[in-house]
Each structure stands twice: as C-alpha cells, then as structure tokens.
C-alpha cells in the first residue's frame, strides 16, 4: 500500500507511562498532581552533609523487578530501570501488547541530562579510593547514556530507530519532537518517546554550587521562591500515526501538532535577558503546528522555581501572547515533583496530553505570595477545570537551549 506523503501524516499520543516522585503510573500521578501532592523530602540517595541544602524529590518504593521482565535489573542503571518501567506502563496504557506491533518498525527516542551518572560516580569512588582495579567490563556496558534507549528497546525487542538525545533539562521535549518527525517521515510506525534521569550526587552538588536549590520547597512564580528542587523519574509516551491509532481503535489523548527549538547562543547557565530564544522557540512551535497564539489554552511552564527562570519565562510569554497572556493559564508541576531533569519535559508533555483529554489543569503549588514581576495566571494551589484545546509545553536547558511543543485535542 502506498504510504501517505510526509505532511499528511498526523501524530497522536495513545499511551502514557510515568515514574515520578508523586507516584508511578498515569492514574496515580494525575490524581496526585490534581490533589497538589508534593514529593519533596530529605534526600536519601546520598549524604548531602556539607552542602547547605538537603531536600530533593526522589522516587520512593520503586521496584524495578515489577517492570523489567526480560532484563536483569542488576545489569542496568537506575535511569534505564525508570525508562523501561515508564515504557512498559505506556505500552500497557496504549493497550498494545509488545508483539502486536512489527518490532522493526518501533522506534525508541529518549532524552536525559546525565544518563547513568551512578555508574561514573561508582568509578570515581574507586578511583579516589585506589580501587580502580575493581572496575570491570560492566562500566562500559552500563555507563554510556545511549544505554537508556537501548535498554528500553532491548526489554521489548524493538529493532526500529533508536536514539538518545542528551540535551539536558529540555531533553524530554527534544525526544518527543524527534519521535514526531520520525513518524511524519515514515521512518517508524510507532515510537516510544520520553526521558529519564536518576537522582545523582553530581547533579545535586552542581545545582547546589550554582545556588539554584531551594532549602525547603519549590515555589514557582512566588515572590519568595528560592530555587528548584532536584528530582528523578521517567516519562514515556506512545506516539503513533493518527491513521494507525484509528485503525486499531486506540484511545487518543492528544495530537502532537508541532514544535520549535532554538538556541540563545548567549550563556551556558543564564537565559537571554529578554527571553529572545524562548520567544523564537514558541513562535516556531506555533508556526509549525499551524496554531494562532490566541488559540493556546494552557502553557505548561518550565517553571523551575529559580528567581531568574520564572521571571524571564513570564517576560517571554508576555512578549509572545501580549494582552492575552494575562488570561492564559500557565502552571508548573515542578512545584510538586521537583525538576526531574531530562525526564521533566517528557513528564510535562504527558501531563499536557492529560490536561487536554480531561479539560483540567494541574496547579502550581506553594504559590502563596504573588511576585509583581510574575503577574500571570499560574493556576495557584488548586487544580482547575478548564477547556484545554491546545497546550504548549516549554522546557529550557543549559547551553541556552529552548524547546516548545504544541499538543492539541485530536479532531478527526
């Protein structure tokens, strides 16, 4: 059968799998987000001793063996464990048995910030302690970040295109965008797309040294916000063509309509003062998805809770949406699950899809005192029923990278 031409293929989300600090599985996570549950607690993964901050958003009570059926959990890193779990949950949510799809036409596209950092941390411990001789073949077999997407494909036997996109804190959006492009170009029939990151002492120490971690809470857009809270987790969505989803009678959460990527080319850790790159990414996302600014009904903010990010993100959204920005709900689930790094925008993309399907917006928690410089509608402290036809998912990263993804209600 003749394949439809590239521009005619539409891409939809038909499955969601989540591993987060407020629960595992789509239903539990969504319920807890709407209830405003926060997953922030004292860090248990390692001793934060000498640092001045000690709280994080960790995934507790995660049992890899519940999800890793064909992979020995002992042989893969924690990011891969999260990723496989989220992928399995997403496939089940999509009502897809792994053998119901042609495995060579299934792609895997994953994002990450740090890959499998616990493996290099163990290497460093050995090096520092003069025990380097204990490093064996397992280091090279487990550490390189491409293992995340490879291990997901290995668990399910998927032989289609396989890519790991390590574009730091925006990686989830990049990975979904890559999957979207691959489906539109006809390079796959189905793509598992998402992101994963484990809690890491390198990441925690780094953000602490940047002075970016809040001592108690993540309070995006609040006048007294003190920073982000590092987290961990994974989010995976099942992407397939609308034609394929319709043919098998799949439940469709939302359509992936387009995206925009840009680079500030300005500073490694500081965003452009007028949000230039962020605006260009949003503009391109609107253009490529054929969306007018006034049709956007929800913005899922990058919203890390650092003083600068939230102010500049507000500036950028106002530049693009003008007066309408004040009527446009924008929230940050990082207030509840912390900043899950490479997983963050994948989890947020899944949450945008749920917001569209449920016509409901999760809140920005811990927003008690408004900041005069952050004067938009941040859906403070309470979930809100709201018709969500178009959602824009923003994510930004070190290196000045900006990404915006546009999801829509799927009208056949």
């Amino acid at each position, binding site marked *: 059968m003749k394949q439809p031409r590239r521009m005619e293929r539409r891409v939809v989300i038909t499955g969601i799998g989540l591993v987060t600090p407020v629960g595992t599985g789509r239903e539990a996570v969504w319920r807890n987000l709407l209830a405003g549950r926060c997953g922030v607690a004292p860090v248990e993964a390692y001793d934060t001793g000498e640092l001045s901050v000690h709280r994080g958003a960790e995934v507790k009570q995660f049992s890899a063996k519940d999800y890793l059926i064909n992979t020995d959990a002992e042989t893969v890193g924690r990011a891969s464990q999260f990723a496989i779990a989220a992928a399995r949950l997403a496939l089940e949510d999509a009502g897809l048995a792994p053998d119901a799809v042609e495995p060579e036409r299934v792609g895997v596209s994953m994002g990450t910030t740090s890959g499998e950092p616990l493996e290099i941390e163990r290497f460093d411990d050995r090096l520092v302690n003069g025990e380097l001789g204990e490093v064996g073949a397992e280091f090279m077999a487990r550490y390189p970040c*491409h293992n995340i997407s490879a291990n997901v494909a*290995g668990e399910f036997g998927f032989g289609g295109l*396989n890519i790991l996109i*390590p574009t730091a804190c925006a990686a989830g959006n990049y990975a979904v965008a890559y999957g979207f492009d691959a489906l539109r170009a006809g390079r796959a029939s189905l793509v598992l797309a998402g992101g994963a990151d484990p809690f890491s002492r*390198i990441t925690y*120490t780094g953000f602490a040294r940047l002075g970016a971690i809040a001592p108690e809470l993540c309070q995006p857009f609040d006048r007294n916000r003190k920073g982000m809270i590092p987290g961990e987790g994974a989010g995976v969505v099942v992407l397939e063509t609308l034609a394929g989803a319709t043919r098998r009678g799949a439940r469709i959460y939302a359509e992936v309509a387009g995206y925009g990527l*840009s680079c500030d080319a300005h500073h490694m850790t500081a965003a452009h003062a007028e949000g230039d790159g962020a605006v260009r990414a949003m503009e391109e996302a609107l253009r490529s998805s054929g969306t007018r600014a006034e049709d956007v009904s929800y913005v899922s903010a990058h919203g890390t809770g650092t003083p600068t990010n939230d102010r500049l993100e507000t500036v950028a959204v106002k530049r693009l949406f003008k007066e309408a920005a004040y009527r446009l709900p924008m929230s940050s689930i990082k207030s509840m699950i912390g900043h899950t790094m490479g997983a963050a925008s994948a989890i947020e993309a899944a949450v945008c899809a749920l917001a569209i399907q449920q016509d409901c917006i999760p809140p920005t928690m811990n927003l008690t005192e408004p900041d005069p410089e952050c004067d938009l509608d941040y859906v403070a402290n309470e979930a809100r029923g709201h018709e969500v036809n178009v959602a824009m998912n923003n994510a930004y990263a070190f290196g000045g990278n900006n990404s915006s993804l546009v999801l829509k209600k799927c009208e056949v």
Partner: protein
Amino acid sequence: MRRVVITGAGVVSPLGDSRAALHAALCGGRSAAKPLELFGDEKLGCTLACEITDFDAQKYLGGRNLRPLDRTARLVASAARLALEDSGFGVETLAREAVGLVLGTMFGSLRTISEFDRRALTAGPTYASPMDFANTVISAAAGQTAIMHGLRGVNSTVSTGASSGLQAIAYAADLIRAGSARALLAGGAEELCFESFYGFDRAGLLCPSNNSAPVKYPIPFDARRGGFLLGEGAALLMLEDASRARERGAHVLAEVKGVGSAFDPSRGKDDGKAVAAEARAARLALEDAQLQPASIDCLSASANGSLCADRREAYAIADVFASAARKLPVTAVKSMLGETLGAAGALQVVALTETMRDGVLPGIRGLEETDGDFPPVVASPQNRRVDVSFGLVNSNGFDGHSSSLVLARPSRR
C-alpha cells in the same frame, strides 16, 4: 521533497585539520597511532591511541576566551569554525539567519564529569566549580560552540554510541528535508580521556600493546585483527537545503541522498540479529535514496579491527549487496584514524567527499589477508581508483546501534 547538500566541512583530527589534509594522510597510508601522551596508568593493557598531539584550539578560535571550554568543546568549536569558513558562512550570515548544530557524541566530556565529581569527593562539595558543572551536561560542547559562533538555530546533541556522528547527520538531514531548518552544522566529536579509555581497556576491546600480541594496530577485516585503538577528533559538515545552497552559489561537496538507522535489540548477544540490524540500516538508506545496491560505487566501513564487529559488518555487506558485493570496493579508515567513537561516522563522510572529488579510495592500512571466517570483502591495503557517483557510509555502535548514509556526487552542470 527538499534535497540536502553538503557545502563545507570542518575537521580536527590526528591526521590533519582540513578535508584535504585528512584525505592526503589516509591516501598516504599514515597511521595516527602512537604511545599515549595525554594520560597513562600502569594498569592499562593498551598504551597506544590516535591522539591529536599538541591540540591547540587557539589556532582556530583566535584570541577568544577558551577557559570555559573543555577538550570536547574545543574540538567542536574548532571544527565548527573551520566548517563555517569552508562553507562561506560569515558573521553577517549568522546574525541574519539562525543556523543550527546537531552534534553526535558518545560521552560529551567524560573527563569534565568525572573531575567535577572527584573534586567534590576529595576537596569537599563546596570546592566544586559551578562553571565546571555546566560543562558536565553531555550537550555542553554544542552549547559552548553555539555561544562562541552565534548559532541560534536548533541546537541538539545525539548519543548512539560509536554511531553518534552519522546519526547526527541523518537527524540533521531529516530536519532540512522536513523544512524545519535550512542550514545546520552536523557531525560528531569525541575526546580521548583516561576515564573512557580505561573503561574500554577493562572491557578488553582494545588492541593489546604487549609484545606477544600478533598485531598492536587495528587492521579491519584482517585475519590477524585483535581489537581497535581509540582515537579522538571532531568533524562537522554544513548541511543545507539544496535550493538555498544554489541561490547563494555555494560550492557543493556532495548530496546526502538517503539515511537509514536500525537497532539490534539483542544488543550484540545474538549474531544473527546484529547482522540483520546492520543490513536493515543499509537497506533503509538505499531505499531512502531510491537506489539499488548495485548503484553503490564504494563503501566506507565502520570496521575498526574488532573480532566480532568486523565479521558482522562483512556478513551484513554480503546480505545487502549479494552478488554486487564482489565488485564493491570497501575501505575502513579506522585502520589509520582509530575508533573515534562519536566523531567516526562524520570523519568517514568527510573522507568520502574527498574520494568522490579525486577518485582515490584509501587502502586499509596493514591489511594482508581478509579473514576467511566471513564472506569476502573487496578490501585492499593499496589505494584504488574509483569513479564514485554514489557511496555508502556505515557506522555501527558496539551494542546495537547501526546507521548508514548514501552520499551522492554533486551533479555536473
């Protein structure tokens, strides 16, 4: 559909810092292998590598402040400068137009990551530098390069092990075909550093340097091969929408005619599945290029001297090309450049554009007798004259990733 052309290349390698110098070295049979200078450890079983001796980024980046850039970022920023010059992209163009960068790398700078961690371990976390932390993200080199050269377009990094560089070019080509970008620097980079070197050494993948080893150098497809040597470098190509390149009168080195990628979910544990994934990647690239295997005039192999990887690639070539394999000249530049991981596929593409230009396909250095254990590959230690309209580049990882790319000589008018 939009066509994608290559209008320039930037190369930083142990065999030269231009496409012409690289090609000349490869055709001269020069090996980059020599005793390690960057680092050493008495526990290492392999003590040779293909280092860029005395790499000095100032040579390419002038008086700019290079302190924030680690070795990987310096390699990438230097290659980007050279690629921008080679393709005629000046500061004014970059100010007017958002040019992007798609970088393939296996590790980013593993040295930066490990040093940051070790400093926190030994001196205490309050001594770890925030600026160093920004460089621990795997995409740091792409970000630093964008800042240095004002690359405001798509900025992405891809990691698929040793096939990262070719995968990055494939990704960038698709972005241009889809109309998402008009001009992108694409390719790959990898630095040599102790941490990754030690990991490969412990995994037993490198050529042993002891005197009892039959060969200390990588000899792809040879019966005596015993492993690979690690190398380093960066190669970036300027990919452009063909109509845009034509409008600005750009010199076209080659056309990216088709790309294909596949994965072996057994991750190398099942020989048959590994061969099938490599063959699938090549078939997809040919299909994408709308070409039959017999149209391919030469092949740049991924083979690096590994026992298992070279055998699999030979089987995959036999599978895809069938009887046409008997007339297909194959080269393997890793015999001289070493395994440069994320840079490898991009360096192969650069070398092949030069072969297309002057019709000389470099030989495989040191090759005496191809291994009788797998289907014959038309390989030679000597350079060969080839008239290449279409060439295929293979790039395979160590544990499942495969990519192939069809390059076409620009049509003569």
